[in-house]
């Protein structure tokens, strides 16, 4: 039995020859690629230079330095509602959620003026003379 080398197969040899012929007829792309790459790098470096470069100095009217101002910053008070079983962090103020909210009341209601008023609100069943 004679083994045929793949390269020596008839049809195959023809196709290899054609591809070689086609490759031989194209121009070498290496030079063009080099030119394109170099020009891309140049353009990119130019862009970076324009963007990152500090602006040209502009002459501004010189003003005296402003006096330092005091800014009062209010610190927000953060409330954390503790879930059952949780304990507060050390030093935290603990407020009972069920405690009544402080309210302001008037303890000295001015005396009413002496005048006859027909419309009157009373407890139910109160007999008005």
């Amino acid at each position, binding site marked *: 039995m004679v083994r045929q080398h793949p390269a020596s197969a008839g049809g195959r040899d023809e196709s290899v020859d054609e591809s070689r012929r086609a490759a031989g007829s194209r121009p070498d792309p290496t030079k063009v690629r080099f030119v394109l790459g170099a020009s891309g790098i140049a353009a990119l470096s130019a862009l970076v230079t324009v963007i990152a470069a500090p602006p040209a100095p502009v002459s501004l009217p010189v003003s005296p330095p402003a006096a330092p101002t005091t800014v009062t910053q209010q610190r927000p008070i953060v409330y954390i509602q503790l879930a059952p079983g949780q304990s507060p962090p050390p030093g935290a103020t603990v407020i009972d959620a069920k405690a*009544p909210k402080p309210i302001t009341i008037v*303890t000295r*209601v001015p005396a*009413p003026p002496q005048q006859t*008023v027909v*419309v009157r609100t009373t407890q139910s*069943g*109160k007999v008005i003379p």
Partner: protein
Amino acid sequence: MITAERPARTSRLAREIAQTPIVPLTVATTAMGGRLVVHLAASGADDRARHDAQLLLARIRRWADRLSRHIETSELSMLNADPRSRVPVGPTLGAALWAGVEAANESEHLVDITLLGARLAAEGLPSTDVAADTPRRWSLCSGPRRTAVVDRAPGIRFDLGGVAKGWLAERGLACLSSWPSAVVDADGDLALRCGPGATWAVAVDDPRTDGSALAILHLSGRATRWPTRWGVATSGTSVHRWRRDETMRHHLIDPRTGAPAITDVVQATVVCGSALRAEALAKAAVIAGTTQGLALLERAGVAGAVILTERGETLALPQTLNLLAE
């Protein structure tokens, strides 16, 4: 609670003009174990005003008769005597029961219309009501043609009391829509309407002295096209009270205990937008006591509140000063 004295009155833009209170035409009768009064901003010679007032009083009396537990044939008494747990009721009783639901919600459930047994027991009358610690479950749903259906646990009986009066005052005032300034007084619970620029003077009764007042409120109509609605109601422990077992008992039942409320408030008056809400909140303030009661009224955002304590102090929420007559 932080208590601050504010003897100086705060002024308001509305007080720039000293307003003269209305001198009303007044028609009165008795109902619900107390007085029933209509005040209209009309002259005493106005026959139409007098006719409208008398017509309304007759209507309110008919409604009140359906809601009274003192009348055996009233719709409320029939409901209380009905052995069924699910009972259809008519439009008037249905609406009053809905008002009871609203009053409970407004008062943070310190007003409860299912406490008839506890109320009778406080008076020393026989009661077959459920035990105080039994959940008083009941519900209401709408039926056909403005009727309602009550669904309740066995033994639940209703006492509308002040809720009915606040509701009747509101419903009565709605019938006087042709009068821009009118007041319906249902035994001390007032539903008021003030026309633009008009002012009603309202005396807050001092229960310690007949004819005297703790304060006089000026309730005005805002300068808008539409009349302003106000509700004023007073509740307390100094009128309906009995001596029993060597202790004084009153009619305001605390739903948390099923017994007359242990409170340091003798009387509370609340001013807000409706008589029903004012009634519920005034009663709740008495039941809750001074500290908790004022806090409750503050949360409710009422327009004003005046409280008389058992120590003889007259306390008020700050916004009340805007309503006081000078």
